[in-house]
């Protein structure tokens, strides 16, 4: 580092949903994760101080892009982190790219982020819809859940998740017995559950997210879906399980990029995170720590905060830390790493607070994420 860092400061902007629908899975926890990463890094790169700023985009893309513009133009923010909710991510990415600033996404999952809408300055770090669908679909079929019925949120995200999972289920030798498209948002799932029950499928796939998933799981419990049928949540975070309680959620399958109690490294990070926030990290929050660390390491390695150089270094260096095994960032910006299939424990199996998952299977990076050859990103040279 010899003054190649513009204005002598590395400024990290955590732009996330502080109060809205995603504030539990990202939000203040994402900010805490970024701050932890900076502290662990030492707070400085050479003489340049590392500073973290944050803002609430309220899930409004216009607010997000306005903040991003101001950060870049007036506050010399070098990198924008998290961007939970795909609409804000997709709104900020081109703004940042046009000004040669890096975006490190952890919260959103939409496939076009690294597909049609990819930019050269973006990293999609934690998960995407494809990974959730493929992970859960394939792994559940392999563990014996052959016949499926889908309850799908009727909008692009839900439908993509459903279609992806269906094709994986079929490709892995499972059967799809039916599906029902519920409007988004829905609070009462009882009639959809009734349809799922009468289909007789072994697995009820929940192709939805957030409050919808939570209500669906809760009501599945009420209507006595188990033990005849199991649920597979296609996008479930540990914060959701925490608010549902194990009694309600037990036996459900889900895919995750991170579980705090998986190995020593993850436990060590999570304990510290817990001390700060009184919650265990979600995969999004752990992803924020890991991606910020990776970014800072890249600056350190290149000695500059020039976006092109940093991006190149980030792509060239594999990620191997408590979060990611065999992680690699492709030219489309997608970070491909191992994912895990988890089953939610029953209350009597849980030994301590937040002891929620049994990791059933590791899904290797090349199965979890779409191969580069299928990428719709124009930046990928084929």
């Amino acid at each position, binding site marked *: 580092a010899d003054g190649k860092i513009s204005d002598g400061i590395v400024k990290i902007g955590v732009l996330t949903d*502080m*109060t809205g629908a995603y*504030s539990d899975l990202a939000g*203040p926890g994402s900010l805490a994760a970024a701050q932890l990463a900076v502290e662990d890094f030492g707070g400085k790169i050479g003489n340049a101080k590392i500073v973290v*700023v*944050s*803002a*609430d*985009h*309220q*899930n*409004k*893309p*216009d*607010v997000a*892009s*306005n*903040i991003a*513009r*101001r950060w870049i*133009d*007036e506050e010399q923010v070098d990198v924008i982190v998290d961007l939970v*909710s*795909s*609409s804000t991510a*997709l*709104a900020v990415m*081109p703004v940042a790219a046009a000004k040669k600033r890096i975006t490190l996404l952890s919260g959103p999952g*939409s496939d*076009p982020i690294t597909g049609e*809408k990819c930019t050269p300055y973006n990293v999609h770090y934690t998960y995407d819809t494809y990974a959730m669908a493929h992970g859960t679909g394939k792994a559940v079929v392999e563990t014996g859940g052959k016949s499926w019925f889908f309850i799908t949120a*009727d*909008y*692009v*995200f839900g*439908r993509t998740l459903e279609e992806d999972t269906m094709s994986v289920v079929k490709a892995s030798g499972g059967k799809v017995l039916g599906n029902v498209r519920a*409007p*988004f948002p829905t609070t009462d799932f009882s009639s959809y559950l009734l349809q799922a029950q009468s289909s007789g499928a072994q697995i009820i796939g929940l192709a939805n997210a957030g409050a919808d998933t939570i209500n669906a799981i809760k009501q599945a419990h009420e209507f006595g879906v188990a033990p005849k049928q199991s649920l597979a949540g296609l996008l479930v975070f540990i914060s959701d399980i925490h608010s549902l309680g194990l009694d309600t959620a037990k036996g459900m399958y889900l895919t995750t990029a991170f579980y705090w109690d998986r190995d020593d490294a993850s436990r060590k990070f999570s304990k510290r995170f817990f001390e700060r926030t009184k919650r265990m990290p979600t995969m999004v929050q752990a992803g924020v720590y890991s991606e910020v660390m990776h970014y800072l390491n890249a600056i350190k390695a290149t000695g500059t905060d020039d976006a092109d150089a940093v991006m190149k270094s980030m792509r060239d260096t594999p990620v191997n830390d408590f979060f990611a095994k065999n992680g690699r960032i492709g030219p489309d910006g997608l970070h491909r790493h191992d994912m895990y299939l988890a089953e939610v424990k029953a209350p009597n199996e849980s030994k301590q607070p937040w002891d929620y998952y049994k990791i059933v299977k590791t899904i290797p990076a090349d199965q979890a994420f779409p191969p580069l050859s299928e990428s719709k990103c124009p930046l990928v040279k084929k």
Partner: protein
Amino acid sequence: MSRDPAAPRADPAGGARSGATPSATTEPLWRRRIFWAYALMVVLGLVAPYVVYPDFAMNVLCLALFASAFNLLLGYAGLLSFGHAAFLGAAAYAAGVVTRDLGLPTEAGLLAGTAVATLMGLVFGLLAIRRSGIYFAMITLGFAQLVYFLAVQLPWTGGEDGFQGIPRGRLLGVVDLGHSFSMYYFTYAVFLGGFWLIHRTIDSPFGHVLRAIRENEPRAVSLGYDVARFKLLAFVLSAALSGLAGSLRAIVNQFAALPDLHWHTSGSVVLMTLLGGLGTVMGPSVGALLVASLEYKLASFGSWVAVITGAVFVASVLAFRRGIVGEVRALVKRSF
């Protein structure tokens, strides 16, 4: 409270009424004041991008136009629409389709957005205009929800991802609007046009009849005015201008997204109008500036946006119903 039609109706425009609408013929002094207010506004608008962040200023202009269009309906026709987000949002999507997917120029996008909102205004209006007061509010809210659900479900809207990547294009094929300043002045010009039209409408022969209808509807009928048509025209005009604001905003921001259609946006435009001053010409713009700044500033504070917005609502309803502009005007009037 009273439903007796003879009882003087409580006035949503607060003090905005008496004396605020002097007969055009008799008060040159008033005319002159308005002229200066306009002049001040024009100048402020011209220097704004040098003082504040242009992208922010553009958003404020779009919202100000939106709120002014809304005020045309509520402040002057006495109709509270709680579904105005539908026009803002639908126009934004329409402008997006025309410019991004059909590749037509920016101007066409604005026209298309305005046209779509006008059409929607006509359809909703035909159904809703038969009721007034709270019914009208609820019905418009219901229709707006329908539009929202549609936008969530239709495949081409991008659902929760939003409709991204709308090009700013070139003005008349020449001026590159990708540049913040040129985009700003274009936005500003459109705003001024829309604002002028609204002001003109309020004072026009049509505006006079509209006010009469609001004051005493059966009497207006007995004078031979087809009140439903007047209200409908006001509604359609307001929808069209909201559409203009929405499509302009889509081009400024380069995307359209679901929050534009959400009923919170419909609530927020009421807040802007109320805060600035219902039934005043400048009020809604002032309100838009305030609300937008609030959102913008609170963003870095973190988490209390909803609470503070709510509190502002409560405070303005309880403490200054006339809104900022209305209060200032009352103050000025009292002290002279």
